[in-house]
């Protein structure tokens, strides 16, 4: 049991570094389907796991490549503290089933948005990335 949990952490961690995400997006489905937590417990546990700076090692790797905008990241973090509180207040009273459905639809919509961006970039030679510098 403990080993399964450790392995889930390692797999989710690889995605943290590979994709620059917190990992919750993978942890929540894994906790629900592999460890059979209900949706609220999976989300609460995932939020707890994300409190320590688990992405620090990954961040240092990105910094070696110069692919980090600290100014943007810090302001973003300030907004997230407030937004996280609001989101938690909305989610806790919701039913687990409804929350699961919302989460799934949210993931699929984000996926379609990202995919369309990636496809658009294929035809004109990357004009949009010019403004990225800090």
């Amino acid at each position, binding site marked *: 049991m403990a080993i399964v949990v450790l392995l889930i952490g390692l797999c989710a961690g690889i995605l943290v570094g590979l994709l620059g995400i917190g990992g919750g997006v993978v942890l929540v489905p894994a906790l629900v389907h592999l460890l059979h937590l209900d949706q609220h417990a999976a989300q609460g546990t995932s939020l707890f796991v994300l409190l320590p700076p688990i992405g620090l090692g990954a961040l240092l790797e990105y910094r070696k490549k110069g692919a980090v905008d600290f100014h943007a990241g810090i302001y973003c973090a300030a907004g997230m503290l407030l937004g996280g509180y609001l989101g938690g207040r909305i989610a806790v009273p919701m039913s687990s089933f409804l929350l699961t459905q919302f989460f799934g639809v949210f*993931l699929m919509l984000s996926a379609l948005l990202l995919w369309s961006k990636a496809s658009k970039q294929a035809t004109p030679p990357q004009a949009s990335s010019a403004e990225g510098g800090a």
Partner: protein
Amino acid sequence: MERTAGFLFAGIVGGIASGLFGIGGGIVLIPIFGLLLGFDQHRAQGTSLVALIPPTGLLAVLAYAKAGYVHWLTGALLIPGLFLGGILGAKIARRIEPRRMRQAFAALLFLLGAWQVFGNWNHG
């Protein structure tokens, strides 16, 4: 100034998703950085990791914990793997071109979303 307001706004949107869905929020931040603020994929991902370093989900965790929705032991066991895996994943990411990475990310998200929605129907 306008860009700073944009970053704060991105954070609030990412934070709401974070508290609502129990995620880090990077999944929302990366498309906002990429689509609205014109970052390339590697920079969007690296910057998202900065926003995820401080414990921004603290208030959200307290909201969940109050309702008894946090499994502390399971959570504690997940942390070391996530940290080590993160370094490994970042080393891999540096060798991959941005467009390919964005597509892989999108495909993964879609599968996870479908798993959430339809997996739940089977279990009743």
